């Protein structure tokens, strides 16, 4: 290749002096800039100082520049183009020879190579502050102030790193070579570090709007490397986690991975539960911590009571309590007084929470489990407290269900393994009578309330009674059935339903059918399909009855024939 460089350098000497085109504004004629007011302005001025053609180019465009300035501009572009390339590809792209030539050319012009490389741009060059403002728009004084703070932060960070290094060394039993002593981190140093951390957090927040998490800033969590939430972009139902929650979760992941059980983990679970009480993972981990550390169960239960009252609809709380009691029970099971005392405490709390939310499914589930666990079957207080709830609201079906459980699942007489809708030979008769009476008294209060009807029916079946044994009672709620629209009155559709069953039980299909028909036609039309099915079932049993009777007669004839 011929050395073009010569050709390129030659005109330089001539043209520097001959540019006299009147329409061309040269760098020399551009007006002198005024004193800069902002950082951006200052750096823009500095940038232009090394590029005398820049102001002219901005105003007039490239074509209006003098030849010399144009060349300067080209060289500037070349310079920065090659600078922008990574070093490796720079030589590959151009080759050593071409590179050399470029530098030759650049040197030939009077380009100032050591100027600001990039044109100062708002937001980009100086970045933005915590409020999203361009730092470049700061006044010089304000910028200097910010700069000092940054230096202060860096200094703090260096000291903090030294401290952390020492903590590490202390752990490893590192001996200082000079003093020959083991490194010990003193209380004072820890206190100093705490002060340093809070200063750092304040500075980070002020400078960058960066909120240092409670944990990342605390000395206590020093040794834990948090595992941040990992999720690809575009993950579904992704939540923009509040910083505090995200941080706590990343520490939780870390300590769960290392299976750490410690007081600080316990505090971490409390912290997360306060932000998201429905987090089953945290609850399970909390229980594991309590058991591993052998902490006091009554203390935990006391803490839990408050959390439960503040989160009535929470589910996890009740399983946690279940685990606690499972763990605690063996320590008191041999002491009847302690057991009774504990049972009372638990009941008192359950009464309190059920007064807030009378049908809370999780609370009732826990309660029935507790009765079985602590053997509260014979506990009169338990039955009394249920009766009180039923007195307050006779329609509280949860209370009725619990009553059925404590009365009919008592292991003293209940046959194990019996289904709830199966009869049980061993249930005492007086209990059955008592419960039927109880339900009937409650029916009188509000005959259309289904709870005591279901209860009574359940009791009759369990106690192997014919449904017909309550026919008189049931008929009180059904007046002149089928005797005309004017005459007929039904005080309870549940009575009519049960009456149909009673008639069916007595093989009186016509009357049973009438009850079902009236339910379908008038008294309970929403269940039309169901009543229709019940009527079909009646015909089915009719047929079976006919077959049974027929077979019996046939059998009789055969016997006679024999």
């Amino acid at each position, binding site marked *: 290749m011929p050395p073009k460089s010569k050709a390129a350098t030659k005109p330089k000497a001539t043209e520097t002096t001959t540019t006299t085109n009147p329409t061309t504004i040269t760098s020399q004629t551009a007006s002198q800039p005024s004193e800069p007011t902002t950082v951006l302005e200052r750096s823009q001025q500095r940038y232009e100082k090394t590029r005398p053609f820049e102001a002219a180019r901005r105003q007039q465009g490239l074509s209006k520049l003098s030849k010399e300035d144009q060349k300067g501009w080209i060289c500037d572009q070349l310079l920065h183009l090659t600078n922008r390339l990574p070093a490796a590809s720079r030589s590959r792209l151009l080759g050593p020879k071409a590179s050399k030539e470029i530098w030759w050319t650049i040197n030939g012009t009077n380009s100032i190579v050591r100027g600001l490389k990039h044109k100062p741009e708002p937001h980009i060059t100086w970045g933005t502050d915590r409020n999203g403002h361009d730092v470049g728009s700061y006044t010089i004084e304000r910028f200097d102030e910010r700069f000092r703070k940054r230096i202060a932060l860096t200094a703090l960070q260096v000291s903090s790193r030294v401290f952390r290094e020492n903590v590490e060394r202390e752990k490893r039993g590192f001996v200082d070579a000079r003093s020959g002593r083991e490194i010990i981190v003193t209380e004072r140093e820890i206190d100093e570090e705490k002060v340093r951390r809070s200063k750092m957090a304040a500075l980070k927040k002020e400078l960058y709007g960066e909120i240092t998490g409670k944990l990342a800033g605390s000395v206590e969590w020093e040794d834990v490397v948090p595992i941040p939430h*990992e999720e690809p972009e575009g993950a579904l*139902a992704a939540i923009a986690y509040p910083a505090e929650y995200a941080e706590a979760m990343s520490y939780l992941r870390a300590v769960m991975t290392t299976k750490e059980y410690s007081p600080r983990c316990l505090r971490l679970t409390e912290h997360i539960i306060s932000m998201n009480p429905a987090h089953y993972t945290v609850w399970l981990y909390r229980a594991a911590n309590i058991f591993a550390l052998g902490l006091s169960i009554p203390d935990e239960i006391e803490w839990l009571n408050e959390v439960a009252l503040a989160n009535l609809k929470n589910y996890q709380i009740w*399983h946690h309590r279940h685990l606690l009691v499972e763990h605690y029970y063996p320590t008191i099971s041999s002491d009847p007084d302690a057991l009774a005392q504990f049972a009372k405490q638990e009941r008192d709390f359950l009464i309190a929470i059920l007064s807030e939310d009378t049908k809370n499914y999780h609370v009732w589930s826990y309660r029935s489990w507790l009765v079985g666990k602590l053997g509260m079957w014979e506990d009169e207080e338990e039955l009394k407290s249920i009766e009180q709830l039923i007195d307050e609201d006779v329609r509280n079906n949860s209370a009725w269900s619990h009553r059925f459980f404590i009365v009919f699942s008592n292991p003293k007489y209940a046959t194990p393994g019996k*289904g709830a809708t199966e009869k049980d030979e061993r249930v005492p008769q007086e209990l059955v009578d008592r419960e039927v009476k109880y339900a009937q008294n409650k029916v009188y209060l509000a005959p259309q309330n289904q709870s005591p009807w279901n209860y009574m029916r359940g009791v009759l079946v369990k106690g192997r009674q014919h449904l017909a044994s309550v026919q008189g009672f049931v008929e009180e709620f059904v007046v002149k059935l089928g005797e005309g629209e004017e005459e007929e009155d039904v005080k309870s559709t549940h009575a009519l339903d049960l009456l149909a069953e009673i008639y069916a039980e007595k093989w009186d299909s016509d009357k049973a059918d009438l009850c079902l028909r009236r339910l379908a036609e008038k008294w309970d039309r929403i269940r039309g399909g169901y009543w229709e099915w019940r009527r079909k*079932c009646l015909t089915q049993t009719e047929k079976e009855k006919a077959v049974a009777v027929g077979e019996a007669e046939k059998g009789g004839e055969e016997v006679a024939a024999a």
Partner: protein
Amino acid sequence: MVVRTKGVRVRNRAIFIRKFPKTKKGNMAAPNSSFPQEGVATSAQQNLDAITDDDFEYVDEEFVLSHPPQQPAQPEPMIPDLFKQPPLVKDDLITDTSRLQDQTVEHCLPFLTTEDGPLDVNDYGLPKLNREKHIKFLKQSLGPLPGRFVAVDASRPWYLYWCLSGLTMMGEDVSSYRESVIETARTMQNESGGFGGGHGQTSHLATTYAVILAIALVGGEEAYDVIDRKAMWKWLCSLKQPDGGFQVCVGGEEDIRGAYIAAVIITLLDLPLDLTPDSPAYDGRSNLLTGIAEYVRSCQTFEGGISSQPNNEAHGAYAFCALACLAILDNPRRIIPSYLDVPRLVSWLSYRQYAPEGGFSGRTNKLVDGCYSHWAGGCFPLIEACLSPSGSGSEKDKTSTGLAAAPESLYSREGLIRYILCCCQDQTKRGGLRDKPYKMSDPYHTNYVLSGLSSAQHQWDLDSDPLPLSNGDTTPTLAVLGADSVWNVFPYIDEKDQIYEDSDRVRPIHPAYAIPQKNVNGIRGYFQGHSGFAST
């Protein structure tokens, strides 16, 4: 031709004209050509445009007589009294329960009677299913979600299932979410098997169920392959309890959800049934399915319904889990009556429906809630299958239970559909479906209300009779028989008029797996094709 006794609305005219298209010669077309032929306007709207005065020459006499043209066409919508008035039998005693119940009726009635509704309703007083808004609501719920959603951080897999399932039922193609479901599910899976609520959360049966169903909904081998089946199987073994049930997570509670979900996972992924020796239920004889049905039985209560765990109160959500679980284990005709007191169960289920609201409640003396459209309403296809006739001829009405065959509808489909369309739709620009009027819509209710709507609009026919069991077993222990049951689904056609528009029919889902049959087949077929892994 059905003739209304009161008033006439544009829609009827359109149908009328569609039934008797004008021929070129001006003669009446054959009345049995009930659908428009080539070139005849196909949609109701086009028909409306096509109506001219001339068209009325085809109106039959009765129609004209009962609808003099000079009468302004502003008819009273046809809403049965049942859904317009408080119940006939009502007590005077006021308690907290009755106060809430009365208030709910008071809140629902204006919606049911469309009293002060600015809404467009059809002749039967029903607004349309606002698909567009509900679709938008579900798509938005797939995120990104703002910070206050931290409360559902452990339920994010549910969001995937609820939203994708709801969209599927409304006819959306969700396969475009495949990539994101795969990516999201990966971060939720744990090496020790199963899926948690999110990155670093403990595996839980509920979240695993939701993830697997979401994967089945988007379909595709790439998606199925996300699931680590071997780890899943080991994890399920660690949850299996000696009494037959399943814990929901290691150290978690044991309840009937666990039993249902385990049955779903085992069958959808075609997992081996053997137990690992470190399973709490390992005894050398039992397998993953042993005792599940017995566990379900122990959850039936004296009321006839099903509770979460033995000895609790009967609750709608658990009734669905119980029935669906049994229907997966074996043919519902055989297994449901073998383990549950069917007459009591049907009674309790039927009582879950209230009038005038029309919707279902979850427990005795509790309020209606849209989600029980699925939990309680969704029990009916399973119960109806259990009560479907097994014989033929004179035995036509007989079922394996010895009870009568179920009628076409054991419950009031009309009531449920009214409750859903009138009370459960959020008609503001938010969209979505809800528990009841004045509650916020959410993806949970949106999905389960739609599931309920779907089951009210379809009927199922269980094709197969129970297969014989080997060796006199009473329960299937070596093979899952219910999962193979063939469920044929048909649109439910009411003998009377259909109260909702045909365009408001949503897609059917499998009565036990709660996703479309095609998706059940897709994922089961894929894993059945894999000989799998050595379980020992």
